[in-house]
């Protein structure tokens, strides 16, 4: 069973004759005997998911790492977080995926208008199954709990992913009137309701 371990900003992936998928170009060093190969359409989930991804503009480029040894993976000196999945689903922005173990399934979920406003594509990626997924973030990730009575509003640029029974919708933070003629700011935010966790990074852009 391949094992992912986060060490500050480097992910250690220990392979034992099996395979992981990792973001293309994220390998910084390797020990042992490991083969790298492009995953073709990339991202896993088969042809249909790849097609959906192409339509949705959710870009993800993964490579297969197989063999025995340890692979060191890193991306832009961003912090690394390993999340264990045991049959549940993690929703994550594809640009935050560094690597995942073979048994996990990646799929594309359309998220409606949200992608339009955050400029991060029309869709988000869901990761499901049993295994581990490694996420990168600017600064450490905070896990913020959402529960009835504790709704959460997040800046689209700080949003990394979420887990649980959540529904997401857009809220307008700063009123339209005040934004006329001003380029920056937070015209839209994401409001989460339901039960679950939202992962937020500490840099807003």
């Amino acid at each position, binding site marked *: 069973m391949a094992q992912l371990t986060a*060490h500050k900003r480097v992910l250690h992936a220990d392979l034992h004759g099996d395979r992981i998928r990792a973001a293309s170009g994220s390998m910084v060093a390797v020990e042992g005997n490991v083969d790298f190969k492009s995953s073709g359409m990339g991202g896993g989930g088969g042809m249909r998911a790849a097609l959906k991804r192409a339509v949705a503009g959710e870009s993800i480029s993964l490579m297969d790492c197989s063999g025995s040894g340890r692979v060191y993976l890193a991306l832009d000196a961003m912090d690394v977080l390993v999340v264990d999945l045991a049959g549940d689903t993690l929703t994550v922005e594809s640009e935050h995926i560094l690597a995942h173990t073979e048994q996990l399934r990646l799929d594309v979920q359309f998220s409606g208008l949200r992608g339009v406003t955050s400029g991060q594509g029309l869709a988000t990626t869901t990761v499901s199954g049993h295994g581990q997924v490694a996420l990168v973030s600017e600064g450490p*990730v905070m896990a913020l709990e959402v529960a009835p009575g504790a709704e959460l*509003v997040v800046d689209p640029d700080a949003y990394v992913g979420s887990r649980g029974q959540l529904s997401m919708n857009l809220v307008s933070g700063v009123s339209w009137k005040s934004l006329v003629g001003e380029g920056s*700011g937070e015209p839209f935010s994401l409001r989460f309701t339901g039960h679950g*966790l939202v992962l937020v*990074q500490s840099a807003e852009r």
Partner: protein
Amino acid sequence: MTYPPGNPYGGGNPYGGQPQPGYGQPPGNPYGQPQPGYGQPPPGYGQPPPGYGQPPPGYGQQPPYGGPPPQGAPSGVPATLNPQSLPDDDNVNPYVFCIALNGEWFMSKGAMLAYYGNIQFDAVTEYSSVQAWVANRFSSPVYIQDWVVAQGHGKLLIGDRGFDLNAYDLDDGNLTIKASNLCAFSKQLELKQSIVPGFVTLIGTGKFIASSNGPVIFVEPPFRADPDALLGWADCPSPSVHHDAQWMTQNIRGMISGALGRASGEERQYDFTGQGTILLQSSEIAREDPAVLRLVESQTQLLTNAQAGSLGQRLVARAQQQH
């Protein structure tokens, strides 16, 4: 004025100027939860892999993988935070600060990461027409459009480009800080534009939050600082600009002929004298501050029409040179 509680960066003050720990608020771990797995020895390669980590308490399902507890970094989602467990007016981690909002705060546009509760953001320009006190507190037309008023009740998380964030308590003092590094300040404080371009001055008693690229270094005058590394200064007179003597002699002819002297950037320093404290950040990365353009533009009103025309020609020439 007081400085951030404790020294979160381990090392003492290398300049021996300002005592840091215990200054102001009680010291302690200002960042709440320690980073999981940092500083722990990595599991040796070749050893049998440790089992998947135990999930954090109260979260998710138990993974079906057995095995001994990991000796490396605990995997899984970091400790869950909710409105109750988030700190009141303290750092969540070195890069995120949590404001327990109850009323109004001034906030830099774009600093908001997330919030719980019922909070509204209004542009300062908008809000000042509703609440007259806002205009008194925020007297900087150059920066006003980059700021919002956050009002309501809840927990507000702010961050700035992943820089280190620190809260500072100002006690009937005045502190000047680089405008692009000021993230938020309480409404009790008054903001004014500093004479030094790109800097703003906070006056009064209250709290403010500022970012720094790397830890903040406190120094006492007399001191010369690189303009990019300079974060701000407190209680001392505004700096004068010091030019390197060698650079001066080399460039004096060029200046007489009217060319704008440009060189390595190290020949120009800010010179501080008098009593007070200077704040430095340990990096020189500067961000393009949109307000600087507005600031310089407003200053051109001092020029006569003929002067403005010749300045315009020079600027056009410079822009063409860079292409």
